[in-house]
């Protein structure tokens, strides 16, 4: 990115002042090397978001920002319905409520390593992964609608997991305001056999170990200890969310002229929050959020069954579940006045600071766990929401490493079999239905997650708590 267009605020944040129709400033959280490495399109896309009606405060790029459809991945923007604010499909993404959850075991890295192959094979057999895989249950009609209205709470009612899990999920495991009746039949048909499946692409289920602690106090509060084994699940709303994204992107793009606003990019198609189409999208999007929450809950239950077989009596407790492709109705101060806003976080994680009333009491002292996925090689991070994140970014932080190269480029550079062998030599067992998929997801295809986590901390978005490294990776 050409940084000459930005004003340096400090070593970790940069500002593009409003110009050419921008209604608010665009803030980029990054150090100079990360910023220089960012695609110029991130600048173009974030400043386009700053031109949308009803945008308030500032718009933000997280340190892992990169090009997305219309709205950058790692982008955050808040819209006020009282100022003709809009909702944008591109501001949420196709994989609605894609997110990460982390399960804590009472096992150690050594325990896992003693049964690593058996565990990898059992998980690969139990977790439906990749294109064409189907889940353990088939949903249609009223059962589908119940899942879309109830989310993880519905899944727990059906016997997938424990009621205690729900307090460790955003929205208590159920997004209110879901409108299953506004989800297309195509979307529901697409989801019929996909509930409880991992998907493909960058989605994964990993058994990891806590490789490093950065904040002993927060780690204790989160129940994390060095060498402890944990399980991380990264996936979203499967075919249903993708179809809702497709349906409403088309509808908003075709409908745009009626509202007299021509978005700078068709992928940034949006509609007033107060319009019928806007309300319909919010209802359908919330149903997709519940689908994602139910999906991760079912995968959790399947994971627990596998652990119980390999390690009889093993208990896996949910630390937290975060969604990083969302639009949520939240109250934030703008110019000293509390306002109800619709905060779009696309490839960005909500990051509530210590003491926030929405957090479960057990986590409140330390802030919300911000779960940041990485690559099969580098691993993942657990961060904790910083007190300064509210002021800095409407309470948002990074979500992952972000790709450093295209799938095409990764395929030319890497062989899936070689990647699997290299990782096995480093103690990481990969199981995937597709070696080409593994090549496309090669660790070298991703950016430096360590730097992104550090910059996220320095910028006051979230504090580093722990670095997790994989032992077993189930890829879709």
């Amino acid at each position, binding site marked *: 990115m050409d940084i000459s267009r930005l004003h340096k605020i400090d070593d970790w944040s940069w500002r593009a002042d409003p110009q050419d129709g921008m209604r608010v400033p665009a803030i980029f959280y990054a150090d100079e090397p990360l910023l220089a490495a960012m695609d110029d399109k991130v600048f173009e896309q974030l400043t386009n978001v700053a031109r949308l009606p009803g945008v308030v405060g500032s718009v933000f790029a997280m340190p892992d920002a990169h*090009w997305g459809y219309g709205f950058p991945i790692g982008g955050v923007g808040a819209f006020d319905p009282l100022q003709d604010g809009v909702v944008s499909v591109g501001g949420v993404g196709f994989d609605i409520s894609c997110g990460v959850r982390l399960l804590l075991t009472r096992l150690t890295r050594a325990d896992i390593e003693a049964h690593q192959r058996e565990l990898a094979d059992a998980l690969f057999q139990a977790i439906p992964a990749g294109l*064409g895989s189907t889940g353990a249950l088939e949903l249609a009609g009223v059962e589908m609608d119940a899942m879309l209205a109830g989310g993880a709470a519905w899944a727990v009612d059906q016997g997938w997991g424990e009621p205690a899990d729900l307090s460790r999920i955003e929205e208590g495991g159920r997004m209110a305001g879901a409108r299953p009746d506004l989800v297309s039949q195509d979307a529901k048909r697409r989801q019929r*056999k996909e509930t409880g499946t991992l998907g493909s692409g960058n989605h994964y289920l990993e058994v990891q170990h806590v490789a490093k602690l950065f904040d002993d106090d927060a780690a204790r509060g989160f129940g994390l200890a060095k060498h402890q084994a944990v399980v991380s699940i990264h996936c979203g709303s499967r075919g249903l969310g*993708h179809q809702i994204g*497709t349906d409403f*992107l088309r509808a908003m793009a*075709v409908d745009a002229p009626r509202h007299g606003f021509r978005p700078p990019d068709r992928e940034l198609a949006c509609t007033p929050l107060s319009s019928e189409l806007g309300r319909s999208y919010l209802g359908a999007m919330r149903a997709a959020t519940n689908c994602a929450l139910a999906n991760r809950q079912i995968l959790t239950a399947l994971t627990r069954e596998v652990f119980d077989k390999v390690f009889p009596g093993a208990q896996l407790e949910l630390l937290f579940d975060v969604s990083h492709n969302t639009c949520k109705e939240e109250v934030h101060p703008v110019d000293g006045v509390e306002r109800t806003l619709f905060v779009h976080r696309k490839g960005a994680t909500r990051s509530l600071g210590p003491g926030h009333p929405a957090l479960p009491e057990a986590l409140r002292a330390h802030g919300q766990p911000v779960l940041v996925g990485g690559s099969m090689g580098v691993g993942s991070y657990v961060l904790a929401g910083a007190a300064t994140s509210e002021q800095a970014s409407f309470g948002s932080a990074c979500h992952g490493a972000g790709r450093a190269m*295209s799938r*095409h480029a990764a395929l030319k550079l890497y062989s899936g079999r070689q990647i699997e062998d290299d990782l096995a030599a480093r103690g990481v067992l990969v199981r995937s*239905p597709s070696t080409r998929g593994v090549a496309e997801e090669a660790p070298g295809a991703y950016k430096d997650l360590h730097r992104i986590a550090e910059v996220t901390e320095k910028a006051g978005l979230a504090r580093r708590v722990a670095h997790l490294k994989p032992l077993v990776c189930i890829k879709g």
Partner: protein
Amino acid sequence: MSTHLSTAGDSALPTTAGWETFAHGADVGVRGRGPTLADAFVQAAIALTSVITDPACVRPERRIEVTCEAPDREVLFLDWLNSLISAMAIENMLFSRFGVEIEGNRLKGHAFGEAIDPTRHRPTVEVKGATFTELQVTKDKGGRWRAQCVVDV
């Protein structure tokens, strides 16, 4: 949009002559070329399958029907690809042979394929949707059509 009728019969077994994929950030683009608009749509559909698996290994055993209507040619192309993406997920199938008939802003098409066999097809990724990015449906000076867009994977 003209009301000219454009048809393309079942594509021959896949060749690389009329289709290709192109790199785009984290995702991939699909492109079809042909002497008619319908041919370009057919070729792009083969490119779509190639993102997931080798189209040559997909047996044309079962036929599904697709109909679309859109305000312009570009959105019609998106609707065609998105109908195939939905059908792949709903029917749990992959497709390798396609036929398209376009009249005005309406498309009638079909696709031949088979149920996904993870062992034989080794599917790489799931395509989430066709997007407005790099979306172009154009005719060059020589009268050849090109239809392309990026698909989200």
